[in-house]
């Protein structure tokens, strides 16, 4: 889609299937339906409001809270994901601390074990912005302080509904991130993805300033129909392969 935007297509959207191998769960299915759209010349803040408006069409949203990644952790886990010493993060989780561990590791644990259960009972639509630099996706950097990326995620009842970016415009930075992501995939025991040279060429020819977002439609429908599992709103579902 970004190739089309670089070619001057303007604002575009698509609704289509997306695939995540091996991801099974109440809110995960290997094939799901994604709604993705881009707004050239828009800021991420404008797009965030558009996402909120769309979600409100489907869900009873009594209020909207916009908080930074740092603020949500401070409020619901009591520690700062960007600055608290790693020993403190480990202690909060009651897990043994190892000095060579990475901050991202502890923050992921905190998210899963402390933050997610805390935000699940909230009535409001929660928009989290300012993600840490170790989870950049395809977002522009914000030099801060604190140094973060211009990325947002939308949560309702603890379910992540959408992920959006102020889209990265720098082609060298983009190429480097694709390579870093591939190195991580290999380290995690997966296969490297082929580098999309057409995409990088389009980036070099110039991507206009642009905000983009992807929203999990099955999750939105699941919440709209008050279901507990995304498979309840899917026409066809895969069966979990037995161990």
């Amino acid at each position: 889609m970004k190739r089309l935007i670089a070619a001057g297509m303007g604002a575009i959207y698509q609704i289509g299937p997306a695939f995540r191998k091996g991801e099974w769960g109440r809110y995960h299915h290997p094939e799901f339906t994604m709604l993705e759209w881009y707004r050239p010349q828009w800021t991420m803040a404008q797009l965030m409001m558009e996402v909120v408006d769309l979600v409100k069409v489907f869900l009873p949203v009594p209020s909207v809270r916009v908080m930074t990644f740092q603020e949500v952790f401070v409020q619901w886990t009591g520690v700062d994901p960007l600055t608290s010493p790693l020993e403190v993060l480990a202690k909060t989780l009651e897990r043994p601390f190892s000095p060579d561990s990475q901050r991202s590791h502890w923050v992921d644990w905190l998210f899963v074990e402390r933050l997610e259960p805390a935000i699940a009972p909230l009535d409001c639509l929660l928009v989290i912005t300012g993600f840490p630099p170790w989870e950049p996706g395809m977002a522009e950097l914000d030099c801060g302080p604190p140094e973060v990326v211009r990325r947002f995620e939308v949560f309702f009842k603890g379910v992540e509904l959408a992920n959006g970016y102020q889209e990265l415009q720098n082609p060298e930075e983009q190429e480097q991130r694709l390579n870093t992501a591939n190195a991580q995939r290999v380290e995690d025991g997966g296969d490297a993805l082929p580098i999309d040279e057409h995409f990088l060429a389009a980036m070099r020819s110039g991507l206009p300033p642009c905000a983009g977002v992807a929203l999990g439609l099955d999750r939105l429908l699941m919440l709209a129909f008050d279901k507990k599992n995304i498979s309840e709103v899917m026409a066809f579902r895969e069966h979990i392969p037995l161990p």
Partner: protein
Amino acid sequence: MLTHNQLRQGTRVEIDDLPWIIVDAQFVKPGKGQAFTKIKIKNLIDGRVIERTYKSSETVVKASIVDKDMQFLYGDDEFWHFMDPASYEQVAMTHSQVGEVKYWLKEQESYQIVFWKEKPIALTPPPFVVLTITQCEPGIKGDTVSGATKPAILQTGATVKVPLFVNEGDRIRVNTRSGEYVERAKG
């Protein structure tokens, strides 16, 4: 060894040197970060439920558990005794292991016993058992529709609410999950 995506509801695992059954498993992937599986596990010995989270790189030991159907023989001051009808091998379970199931123990009846590391740790009664009423108020003839009930004490000591027409000495079918009267047993 089970990898994180093999942690499924119903799988029995060994954690902290104790046997557990997974009652809920949830795949979680925060942000664009690493994948986790959150499990809710029930202890097979004392029934307590706790939560644990595992990273995609971690593994969990599968519990070495065997289920066997065994016949109830008799109870004494210390133990309840069961026998494997195929091998005639006998096992004894303590009062605390048997717990409330003692109200549904009937000689010759078959019960499912869970063995962990070759030791019995829990037992499940059949869904229905037929037991004799040893004590209750006399029956009222003809009253089969009013829906009124009276307490009846069974041969095992269990107290069950029964309809008014049922008599002492009658054999009744009882649902062991709910502890409720189902019907008078025929024959």
